[in-house]
């Protein structure tokens, strides 16, 4: 993760963004005490710019712009290994889904997957289970 300077204030922690993510995900973000079990077991961690425990920490702190610009929120595939191992019962995958949906819901389409960019040959080879799940998760 690149070095970033973060200014933390109570205004950020109680921002509408934090409340929104907690509502969509139905999670209490402050339950997380940063043990790191979610990131340790994450099969996608090697491909993420920020790790799952860092996503939760940044969400607690209301780091709106950094989170919605991160690659990692799109890399998570909701395999739910993190959820089943979290000692505090935080559903990390649900929180990441809330971040994805927040970006997808912002007026203009903020799709992560552009179907037109996939070559027709590749589209024909892929099974429907792959195409439909990708479109459901990565486009609006």
């Amino acid at each position, binding site marked *: 993760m690149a070095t970033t300077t973060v200014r933390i204030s109570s205004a950020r922690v109680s921002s509408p963004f934090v409340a929104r993510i907690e509502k969509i995900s139905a999670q209490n973000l402050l339950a997380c005490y940063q043990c790191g079990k979610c990131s340790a077991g994450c099969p996608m961690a090697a491909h993420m710019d920020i790790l799952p425990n860092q996503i939760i920490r940044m969400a607690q702190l209301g780091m709106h712009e950094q989170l919605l610009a991160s690659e990692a929120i799109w890399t998570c595939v909701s395999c739910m290994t993190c959820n089943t191992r979290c000692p505090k019962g935080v559903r990390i995958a649900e929180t990441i889904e809330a971040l994805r949906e927040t970006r997808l819901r912002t007026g203009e389409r903020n799709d992560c997957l552009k179907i037109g960019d996939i070559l027709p040959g590749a589209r024909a080879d892929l099974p429907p*289970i792959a195409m439909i799940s990708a479109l459901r*998760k990565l486009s609006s």
Partner: protein
Amino acid sequence: MTKLIYYPGCTLKNHARNFDVSTVSSMGKLDVEVAEMSRWNCCGTVHCLSSDNVMNRVAPVTNLIRVKEEGGSEFMTGCAMCYNTLKRANIDVKQRADMLETINEFVYLEETKYAGEVDVLHLLEYLRDRVTFDAMGKRVVKPLAGLKVACYYGCLLVRPKEVAFDDVENPTVMEDLVSALGATPVPFPLKADCCGAYHTVGKPEIIADRTNRIMGSAAEEEADLVIVSCPLCAYNLDFRQEDAKRMNPDFQHLPVLYFTQLMALAFGCDESALRLDLHHIDPKPALAARGLV
């Protein structure tokens, strides 16, 4: 013959026809008539994890309505993704009256309203609990003796806990099935590690890395083949082996089969019930080496 309502799911009707035909044929040998629903639609493939997104729960629930219309109180699917999506949507509407009401409003043209009357079963769960592996063992006409099988669960059969019909960290239902068929399950440390799922569409390099690790783990245990219950896992672990080989020259190709294909083989079903021609990595040499084809 016991009749069991069957939801195949979209991929079993095209890319994964080998999963569909081997399911119907092998269950026939167990005196279970797998009766495909007369009408069904795609389940949506993935469960929506947002608390407020009702629209993505409509597709699974309309399938539950179809089962109710057919007079069923339960139905079965073999696809791990369909199972997960249908079962979780069912849990959502059973627990949240507001969501159920909104969905019924969305599908106001349906004659039947849904109120949580249907149960979703996975084929492995049905085999273990209703048919039993002991009874299955008695129907084996061609024991899969000597065949070493790595059982791959992926994510959605055992996660999250509320849909899991086996241990979330170390499931064993497929190993028990493999033993009942006369084959030998081998240890497989990465059996519940995600294959990368739908990233196969936009980021195939991630799948190549996952396939390299997962299939490499099975090869280290000297497995002859890997079995799965998810057509997306099957596609990734089978078709992405060429990419894995480019990434790692030591990568060893291994065939990937559906668990129902092993059942069809052991129960002596016709070759047309196996559709071994639909695999990217040909399973015939591995099966022939054990005298099974």
